[in-house]
């Protein structure tokens, strides 16, 4: 079973394997194995194992290969480079979410559909900035599609993080900064002040740092636990680690610690409390409410499909504004709240 997402059902439809372009015979971020999958970005809810052939942005190839396997069949294209698949004109455009993240634009007989993947419009030193694309049908994520979510400028958040690190140093506590190993950690790294003290990274973060550096992204110098001399003093250090380390024995080696979590969810105190963190930094790689509405407006789309988040709320709000909007049920999970996020990272934190 399937139903049309674009006006022409052969351009974009939803099937039980994922979003499908029938004429071009390819899927976007499918959740079951298919022959040809265009991948918006390397987060595990979008880039799954088992596809015969992967297509992604050139910027994102290295990261994707590390997430999949060295043998995966991956073809990559520059942002904006147009390819034709059975007559469908397909191109990838920056989504600003993480390194290599892309919106997928497809065009058939003058009709344009865009799948946003995950995206943010705010600046990020570690990836190419988001670019609005005009289209007829727009599939948008809405992880933070509620008016309570409004992000602060990066400089303010990084100043807070560096300030917190400094306070901990004064108290002789090691700073444990938790966030997704892919994307969030590198963005945070780009804002840390390396002059303040040693920056240490968890193995999972290190693997992704390598992919970023290979792609030409400058990150401050980091050290792995294994490189440190015995008896290393952690009290002045900051440690970047995935959320799964919280409450684990892995943390014991650092002595007295202060734990912080970086996520858009940290905007709400209850979420912070549930995670039992000393600090929460509101740093998200998704659009906030005002940017989400702005991005939708900028596409000029006639049909808006909301997925990946507060779909019902966004749809109801858009309809109130006189727009055509529908919920699209996908199996992309998004930036999870609370404990599930930890579980998702578990596999790579070993």
């Amino acid at each position, binding site marked *: 079973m399937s139903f049309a997402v674009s006006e022409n059902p052969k351009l974009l439809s939803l099937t039980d394997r994922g979003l499908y372009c029938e004429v071009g015979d390819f899927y976007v971020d499918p959740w079951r194995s298919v022959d040809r999958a265009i991948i918006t970005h390397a987060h595990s809810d979008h880039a799954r194992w088992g596809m015969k052939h992967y297509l992604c942005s050139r910027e994102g190839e290295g990261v994707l290969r590390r997430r999949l396997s060295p043998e995966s069949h991956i073809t990559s294209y520059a942002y904006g480079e147009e390819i034709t698949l059975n007559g469908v004109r397909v191109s990838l455009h920056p989504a600003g979410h993480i390194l290599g993240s892309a919106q997928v634009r497809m065009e058939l007989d003058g009709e344009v559909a865009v799948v946003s993947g995950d995206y943010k419009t705010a600046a990020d030193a570690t990836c190419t900035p988001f670019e609005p694309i005009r289209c007829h049908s727009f599939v948008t994520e809405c992880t933070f599609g509620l*008016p309570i979510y409004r992000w602060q400028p990066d400089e303010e958040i990084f100043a807070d993080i560096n300030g917190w690190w400094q306070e901990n140093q004064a108290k002789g506590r090691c700073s444990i900064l938790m966030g997704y190993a892919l994307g969030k950690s590198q963005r945070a790294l780009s804002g840390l002040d390396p002059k303040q003290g040693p920056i240490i990274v968890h193995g999972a973060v290190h693997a992704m740092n390598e992919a970023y550096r290979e792609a030409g992204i400058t990150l401050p110098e980091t050290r792995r636990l294994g490189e440190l001399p015995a008896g290393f003093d952690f009290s002045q250090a900051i440690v970047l680690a995935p959320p799964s380390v919280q409450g684990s024995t892995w943390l014991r080696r650092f002595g007295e610690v202060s734990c912080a979590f970086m996520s858009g969810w940290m905007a*709400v*105190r*209850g979420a912070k409390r*549930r995670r039992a963190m*000393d*600090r929460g930094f509101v740093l998200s790689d998704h659009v906030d409410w005002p940017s989400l509405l702005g991005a939708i407006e900028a596409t000029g789309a006639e049909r808006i499909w909301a997925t990946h988040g507060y779909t019902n709320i966004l749809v109801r709000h858009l309809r109130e504004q006189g727009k055509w909007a529908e919920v699209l049920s996908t199996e992309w999970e998004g930036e999870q709240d609370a404990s599930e996020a930890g579980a998702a990272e578990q596999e790579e934190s070993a």
Partner: protein
Amino acid sequence: MRDFATLYLDLDSSNRTNDKVAFMVEYFRTASAEDAGWAVYFLTGRRPKRPFASTKFQLWAAETAGISPWLFTECYDAVGDLAETIALVLPPPIETNQEGLAWWVQNVLLGLAKEPEEDQRRIVQECWQRLTTPERLVFNKLITGAFRVGVSQELVVRALSMSSGVPQATLSHRLMGDWTAGSLFFESLLSLDQDASEDLSRPYPFCLAHPLEAAASSLGDLSEWHVEWKWDGIRAQVIRRGGNTYVWSRGEELITSRFPEIAAIGDRLPEGTVIDGEILAWSEGRPLPFAELQKRIGRKTVGAKLLQSVPVTLIAFDVLEFEGVDLRARPLSDRVQILDQLKTTGLVEVPMPKTVNGWSELAAIRDQARDLRVEGLMLKRKSSVYGVGRKRGDWWKWKLDPFTIDAVLIYAQRGSGKRASLYTDYTFAVWNDERQLVPVAKAYSGLTDAEIKEVDAFVRKNTQDKFGPVRTVTPMLVMELAFEGIQKSSRHKSGIAVRFPRIARWRHDKLPADANTLEEIKRLIPD
């Protein structure tokens, strides 16, 4: 407002007691006396009257944010806290403000209630435009009266003492009773002059006892101990000063008018007297069950019928002030003698047997406690002073089994069957070393249907978070839990497991801060 908002967020996000104290010390040292005075007022749980209904507040916020009421409600559902929801949905401020907490309280907050609704809305909206998100959160909390930040009065007192050098006992005393943070309040609070005209109505901080878990014989020579019945009523101080009588509960509520019988006892006391004792429903020489007394607790005024069916009396067990002199530093044996002189004024006395030969005989006496409707015995060292708070070692509660603890309601879940529409399944918590509430027991039964309805309404009004069927509620309700056994458990976060927990009764008279600590409960574990 910025500094106070920072303090609020620091306290709110910190899990460490020492950090919390340090944040407050820093604030008290740097804030103006006026700001600090109001900070003390709010941090110790005092609040001015709510100026308007929170429904209006929501509407104005949705209007300012330019969102539909349904969308505001969705936001509120996601956040679980009204003040915070409003702070988050509003567009960024267009101006900044330099004014401190006192300015906002005195020039905006206190006057709001008197304004007509149209002006209230305009004033509130103008304020929002001048406040940052954290400042708005605090401003909204002050307005809605929901300002709670998880510090006990004890902790505030500790911080004040550290920042001023004034002893904690003096500060606790000065913070009791009715006061508001006027202009000279903070200076007089921190005054090093002990004789600064202290309010005549003011009670002394109550001295509390610890449960005795060790064998009583470990307390040494019985002759060094003063033994009393442990009554199950309302702990109260009766004050006779300046020709007036004041009756205070341990929850720092002035309850004089609710208990005219006790007020009458107070009126017969000589000028300059403060008595510490227990208010009990009393008839025919013995106490009525606590449930009877409870009928009197909630009533601001009592009718003749209730006065007749549930008469109360005072069992006095200590005298803290006599002839205008503070006796708290004198040994208990001296105070008891003075109390004996006062007994002619109508204080009820239920004597202990005069001669008790050793601890085992005393244990036998304790076992009769149930017949007398008392909870057990109090053991107080004869040489002990009247201390502040829960000092260990001098005062012990030697209670009968079952074990009982006072715990705070933190989670509620809907019941099943005919109670499926009501929140009837509760999780209770006690304080750990970090002054955080940790769950210790789930309890389902023990409340009356009327009480269950009352708790249900409370849960709905005070939900902070929802996950699945479980609601996290603002920790406000204290219940006494009884259980048959206790043991160590690695499966529970608290490290203990209790057997057959049930709600013994709702402690309307206790505040969350009065609940037991995990440490105290762990001491109940048999070796």
